[in-house]
């Protein structure tokens, strides 16, 4: 899983081992340090997946209780942070599944078009705004995030885990109970749909 630095130096990992021993013994100072240092990014991960502050806080709380319960089985073959990332993502996905689904429009309407000769039908792009200039404008960020939220959940989640959380295809497949090729298909369809949704912005038309 690609979270944080992949190169682990000796001193880093032995420091980490010492911390983990303290955590396993339930030492309060070490526990509080762990919570204070990690709750921020864990809350951010949960918010991205759940889109709801109260649910995100529940999620982080559940994740920590799972972390404390599983400290014994943490094997140290991955960094503590990527292990925690995995746990918080899993908790968020569980909460997402238990939540009532809203009505979703089918993704098919947002897929690229081909004619009877298998040729792509694509309006000319006379202007293509750069993402860098677009993001400078106020409202862009909010608009983009709300458009991402329009994707059907099973696609939005794959896009988030692969492109934003930068998790490996194999990890995402395992978490969602999908085959790797299925994850790839969903990712591409999610990106294609999002391209369609972001088109007015990218063409410089106001929404």
């Amino acid at each position, binding site marked *: 899983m690609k979270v944080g630095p992949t190169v682990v130096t000796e001193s880093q990992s032995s420091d980490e081992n010492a911390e983990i021993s303290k955590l396993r013994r339930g030492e309060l100072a070490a526990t509080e340090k762990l919570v204070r240092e990690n709750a921020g990014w864990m809350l951010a991960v949960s918010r991205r997946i759940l889109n709801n502050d109260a649910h995100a806080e529940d999620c982080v709380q559940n994740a920590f209780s799972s972390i404390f319960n599983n400290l014994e089985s943490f094997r140290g073959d991955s960094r503590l942070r990527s292990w925690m990332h995995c746990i918080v993502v899993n908790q968020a996905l569980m909460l997402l599944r238990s939540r009532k689904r809203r009505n979703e429009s089918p993704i098919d309407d947002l897929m690229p078009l081909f004619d009877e000769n298998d040729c792509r039908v694509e309006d000319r792009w006379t202007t293509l705004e750069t993402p860098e200039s*677009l993001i400078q404008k106020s409202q862009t960020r909010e608009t983009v995030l709300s458009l991402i939220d329009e994707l059907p959940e099973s696609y939005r989640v794959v896009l988030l885990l692969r492109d934003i959380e930068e998790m490996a295809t194999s990890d995402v497949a395992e978490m969602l109970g999908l085959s790797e090729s299925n994850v790839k298909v969903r990712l591409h369809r999610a990106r294609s749909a999002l391209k369609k949704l972001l088109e007015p912005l990218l063409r410089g038309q106001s929404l």
Partner: protein
Amino acid sequence: MMSSPKKLMRRMHGMMFKLPLMITCNEFESFILAYLEDGLPAKQKFVFEMHLKICRECREYLQAYRASLELTKHAYEGDLIGPNDQVPDDLVRAILAARKA
């Protein structure tokens, strides 16, 4: 309505894309993900890039696809790290209380 010279052009494109070392736009579509992840074998990469050179629609489509992906990543920037000072104190207390219990 598509004008008929335009329609003829598209038919010719469609025929051309069936020649050896050519792929249709539909096949191109199915290679995009692997191409962007640098996962295409050399021969497929060659035909993909060949199609990119001769097909205006796919070229512009791919540009917009990439721009949209980049814009999406930008939209999440800033909250990726998740500043710890924004963690509600009662959340921290609740987590610690649960640990002690």
